[in-house]
């Protein structure tokens, strides 16, 4: 089957996935704040309300806790809701329904139900929106058994992983970095899925593995280009899913390069990098390490408003370059 491939933005790719899901499955519908005529705070739902009507593209009141709960209830009883949070920060208002209900309902009822809900979270800093609109809370949800948590980094994955999420019988939380929405990449027409739980090697290399998530994948690839000119051959692993994590791909990569740098935007402490590091420390890859593992994560602060400070709170390309150079040089 050959599907034509076009350049789409990350936001367009998500929109296309939602349209395909709704076209092919009557049970699928969208809920969220201002996703109808407004088109969503980041224009991801766009004109979908015109195509599918207000019954399937539902504007909710500003009620995150109730809205998320309604989505959970609909999912348990046979529908396939895709719930959009206006900003991932507002997940904090809906934690009860996400963590106590969606994640545990199947388990608590001994497998009598499943909860096929998809929740989308525009995340991350870089827009000057300050401390309550810029967080990266994916590790919070990654800590909860029963949830699957993904962070697609490319338009191709954004579409394929969303379609996989809709098909998944369990709750899938999608963290979409706001700065990725306008980035473009090749996206095939029609239906395809990208598996949840599988990392992707974005660049092969021998000297050093960078495990990155979301927008940091792009920053790592940019750094890798510069490092190549300096004779440092970097392998970039795009983690894509933080729960369940693809141990095998990361372990194999580290066994090959013997050096690991984790780069992620969430706060460094108790974050994704802690889990990746521990995973390596606990595995056979530990014996292959030639240098201590290095983590680059968000600063231990809320995200500040001032633009220079804001940039300084999350890893940037020069930070990755510096960390990679010293890591490549260090060790045995």
């Amino acid at each position, binding site marked *: 089957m050959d599907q034509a491939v076009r350049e789409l933005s990350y936001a367009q790719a998500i929109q296309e996935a939602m349209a395909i899901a709704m076209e092919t499955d009557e049970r699928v519908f969208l809920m969220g*704040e201002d996703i109808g*005529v*407004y088109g969503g705070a980041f224009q991801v739902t766009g004109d979908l309300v015109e195509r599918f009507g207000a019954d399937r593209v539902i*504007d909710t009141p500003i*009620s995150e806790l109730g809205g998320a709960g309604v989505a959970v209830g609909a999912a348990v009883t046979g529908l396939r809701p895709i719930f959009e949070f206006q900003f991932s920060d507002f997940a904090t*208002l809906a934690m009860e329904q996400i963590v106590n209900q969606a994640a545990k309902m199947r388990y608590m009822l001994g497998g009598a139900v499943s909860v096929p809900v998809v929740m989308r979270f525009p995340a991350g800093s870089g827009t000057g929106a*300050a401390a309550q609109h810029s967080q990266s809370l994916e590790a919070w949800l990654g800590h909860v058994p029963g949830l699957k948590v993904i962070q697609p980094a490319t338009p191709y994955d954004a579409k394929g992983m969303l379609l996989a999420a809709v098909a998944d019988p369990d709750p899938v939380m999608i963290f979409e970095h706001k700065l990725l929405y306008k980035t473009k990449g090749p996206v095939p027409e029609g239906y395809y899925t990208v598996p949840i739980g599988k990392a992707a090697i974005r660049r092969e290399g021998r000297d050093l593995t960078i495990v990155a998530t979301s927008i940091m994948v792009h920053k790592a690839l940019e750094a890798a280009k510069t490092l190549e000119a300096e004779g440092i051959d970097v392998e970039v692993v795009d983690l894509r899913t933080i729960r369940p994590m693809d141990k095998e791909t990361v372990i194999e990569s580290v066994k090959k390069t013997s050096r690991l740098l984790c780069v992620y935007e969430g706060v460094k402490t108790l974050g994704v990098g802690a889990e990746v590091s521990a995973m390596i420390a606990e595995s056979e890859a530990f014996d292959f390490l030639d240098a201590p593992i290095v983590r680059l994560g968000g*600063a231990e602060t809320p995200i500040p*408003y001032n633009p220079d*400070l804001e940039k300084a709170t999350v890893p940037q390309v020069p930070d990755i370059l510096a960390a990679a150079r010293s890591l490549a040089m260090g060790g045995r």
Partner: protein
Amino acid sequence: MTVAQAKPKDLPVGANLPFIYREYSAERLKQALHKMYLIRQFEEGAEESYMRGLIHGTMHLSIGQEASAMGICMPLTNDDQITSTHRGHGHCIAKGAEVSRMFAEFFGKTTGYCGGLGGSMHIADVSTGNLGANGIVGGGIPIAVGAALTAKRLKSDRVVISFFGDGANNEGAFHEALNMASLWKLPVIFVCENNGYGMSTSMARSTAVPNVADRAAAYSMPGVIVDGNVLSDVAEASHEAVRRARAGEGPTLIESKTYRYRGHSKSDRNRYRTKEEIEDWMTNRDPIVRYENELMEFGIIDKAGVEAIREAVAKEIADGIEFAKASPSPEIRDLERYVYTETV
């Protein structure tokens, strides 16, 4: 305790005069016009600076809602407190903040009210009783109830105002907060500035009751509806609510019906309302024009007086922007300052 003066001698007498003309001196009435202009021109100045790339991020302008912020704050003292919203520039100015330090905050400078860490969405001036704007819809409502609990426990004469929008009345925090405030008879006043929309979603499409004030019945407190574009009506409702609160009679919910002229934020295509609707409010119900005409009609101010106010405000705005531009930016080495309280 009240800051208002007894019926002033320099005003026309008559029982039919609107509330504020019976309550305030000509001087205070003129000050109110000055502040309403200050709010309007501050936001126009902020908008222009944003267009010119001097301010980043986003901002929510309250242009068209000035009478609401001003009227509510008229009976307040410096000791009284407010919690505000993402659309909070007007509240901040009405409560007494300096526009220069507000501009500095928007420019991300150390001289800003939040040292450049908060920006428009977190503008605050704790020294004049503003506990802060909020990035979370409804986030400030329980905080105001907490501040009122403090006021009651410490037996201060303070009242607390919680500003929020129509959209916020559908958050759980709103309902939980109103219940506790009423249960404990706290000196707090809930002020819903109903501008018809929460982002793109109209009241009719989001709220099961026609008026936010109707919610008051469920929490056993008075629910009052006022024309939010008529300064005197807003101030009168605020006075009565403040009196109740100070007398220990508990909270009031005031719904101030108004309208925002600008888009929700900087990314709004205005697809959910008509041009005619916007123009109707702008040309027929502008709160500043209305108040100014009233003042002239009652002989409290003349054209020259209004012109003098406008000029003074324009200068204050220009000076404020200059102050902001000239101020220093925070240092990256101070990034982690204020995450926790410094111990000496």
